[in-house]
């Protein structure tokens, strides 16, 4: 989990450094951390031989992050809504939901091997970012 902490720290530094307001920054960093956890846990299966690759671009107009793993991939259709009555008491299945809640666009791309998730948050000129 050290790599997740490294990603989280880098995201905090980059996003807060861009002058994005603290509530928004908290959500974005949380979403990025969830993506990193997914990559390490569900993608790479904690296998230290598999790499996680993260890119981040941050400006006052947009935050764009990609997180790629080297795992076997997964079926997006198998991600049920964790807020549905029948899923509410499940112990797992909220990570991607949180990511989708915090970002405007969440795109998945199949790699060979692995999966890449791309997260995009756009800011209007007068909101989100300040200073």
């Amino acid at each position, binding site marked *: *989990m050290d790599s*997740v902490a490294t990603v989280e720290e880098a995201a905090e530094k980059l996003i807060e450094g861009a002058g994005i307001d603290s509530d928004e920054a*908290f959500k974005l960093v*949380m979403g990025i*951390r*969830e993506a990193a*956890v997914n990559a390490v*846990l569900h993608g790479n299966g904690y296998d230290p031989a598999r790499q996680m690759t993260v890119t981040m671009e941050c400006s006052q107009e947009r935050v764009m992050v990609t997180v790629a793993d080297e795992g076997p991939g997964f079926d997006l259709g198998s991600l049920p809504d*964790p*807020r549905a009555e029948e899923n*509410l*008491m*499940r*112990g*797992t299945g*909220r*990570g991607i*939901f*949180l990511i989708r*809640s915090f970002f405007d666009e969440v795109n998945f791309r199949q790699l060979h091997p692995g999966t890449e998730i791309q997260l995009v948050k756009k800011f209007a000129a007068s909101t989100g970012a300040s200073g």
Partner: protein
Amino acid sequence: MALSIATRELDGVTILDLSGRITLGEGSVQLRDAIRELISKGVKNILIGLGEVNYIDSSGLGELVSAYTTAKNQQANVKLLNLTKKVKDVLQLTKLYTVFDIYEDEASAIASFK
């Protein structure tokens, strides 16, 4: 900051005062172990104080749900106390706010177990 858990008892209720983060690799396992230990000892009334918890991730949410269901299965109750804004926001977003009994003051929470 890892999770720290302090345990105390008041009027037949075991209170876990949590401080730090409830996340995969940091606090989730500690919380799970603490709840399981109490349940195995036959404790029926458990109040989880979250006033010093400023971060919970999807894994931590799963542990709270697991604590709730584990307790229910043993005819015990788990309730939550003093949510910080950030934890409350995440519970509301995931609709888990509707699942738990949540209290803002300790006296009311203690009284609710009677």
